[in-house]
């Protein structure tokens, strides 16, 4: 997908830090997503073709986003993104070293994708402030949903008649996963507010979206809600009190 050359609106009118950080997270987060799907392909040769395709799609998103940034004179904040993603990379490396593809599927396919969808979807309402971003975010959103659907089917089949095992997997993965990715969501909430979204709505959508995915794989609704809400509560409290989130 090509990004049209356009002049950015309100280039001199606003502090660019929020959008630089958000786009940094989008660009480098997509690159990490490509790596994670690549690692999953190594662990699951039987699914390698589709997982490599997902990796390629995520890499393409990163390229689109970077190009859209260039058109809007936005320099993605790599340092911020690296700081946010380091913790996730460490988790991913641990899961890969343990040969735990299912943990990677939950972290990437559910938690990270839930965050991406929760932000990309409302972003479309303000995308025209940054010319050339609407089409690429709309396309990326559509493809992230496709990844989530595939991951949901994969996990449902893998844990068919083994819901307890899936619950144990989620309990193991969620504590670190939500602390890390949910923590990032809290840290960018104010940046989302500043570009015209609602950080709280994005966080709420991520929580609800992730709970819904857990339910689709077989975790009872109340249990899924309690697990996700319970892990977000400390993050929300830290956000509210201006404490260091992670």
């Amino acid at each position: 997908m090509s990004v049209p050359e356009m002049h950015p609106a309100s280039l001199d009118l606003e502090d660019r830090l929020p959008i630089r950080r958000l786009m940094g997270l989008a660009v480098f987060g997509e690159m990490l997503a490509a790596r994670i799907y690549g690692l999953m392909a190594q662990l699951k040769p039987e699914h390698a073709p589709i997982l490599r395709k997902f990796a390629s799609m995520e890499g393409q998103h990163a390229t689109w986003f970077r190009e859209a940034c260039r058109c809007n004179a936005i320099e993605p904040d790599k340092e911020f993104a690296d700081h946010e993603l380091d913790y996730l990379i460490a988790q991913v490396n641990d899961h890969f070293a343990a040969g735990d593809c299912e943990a990677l599927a939950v972290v990437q396919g559910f938690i990270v994708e839930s965050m991406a969808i929760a932000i990309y979807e409302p972003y479309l309402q303000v995308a025209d402030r940054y010319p050339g971003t609407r089409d690429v975010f709309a396309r990326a959103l559509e493809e992230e949903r496709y990844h989530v659907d595939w991951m949901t089917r994969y996990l449902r089949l893998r844990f068919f008649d083994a819901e307890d095992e899936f619950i144990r997997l989620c309990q193991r993965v969620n504590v670190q996963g939500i602390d890390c990715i949910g923590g990032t969501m809290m840290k960018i909430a104010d940046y989302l507010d500043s570009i015209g979204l609602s950080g709280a709505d994005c966080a709420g959508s991520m929580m609800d979206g992730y709970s819904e995915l857990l339910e689709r794989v077989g975790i009872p609704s109340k249990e899924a809600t309690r697990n996700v809400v319970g892990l977000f509560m400390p993050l929300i409290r830290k956000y509210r009190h201006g404490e260091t989130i992670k």
Partner: protein
Amino acid sequence: MTATSPLETLAPPERLLWTVLRRLETLGLEQYEQFVPALATPAKRSLVERLRNEVPTDEALTGQELEEPVRDLCAAALSDSALATLCVQGLTLERLGQAIYSRLLTSPGAGPLSRHLAELGGAAAGQTIALALSELQQRSSTENLLAGYCDATEPVLACFDALGEAGDRALGPHFGLRFIDVLTDVATELIGNCVQLGMNRRKLVCHLTAAFMGA
């Protein structure tokens, strides 16, 4: 346990907690009597009467860090309609009470009298919530429950943070409770109830998240 158990059987943190709960339960009962008499059940009346006997004054609360958050919450929870009362008291604050009562039953800091009162409170809350759900279900075809719920509960939920902070400091160590755990119980049950009433779950979760974030 009799209705005339001496006050001395409650440790100071227990007296403080039951004074707070007496304030909230009394307000709830008054709101029900004014706007939704069906929710002023015999069990609720009996609970309030019992709490008035056990902790008849605000002495334990006066001058404490919790006093202001409790006063603010009570002010925010003053409803002006049946729908608001059902949402604020019948669903939200009853769930808050129920979550506290439930955790008190196994709290190492809760003595026999506290556990007995928690049993009474939990049973009364359960009845009231069931009635509130039934009332709201009847209204669901003619009223926008989600909008009504969000409007009515926003100022109340906004008070939870200060209440939790002060409550954790004043009561947490004694009872082994954290307000965020209580709040997790409340949010989980609320989400289930509201979805059952036909409210959009995503919008409700966003409402709760925004309120808890102070957004």
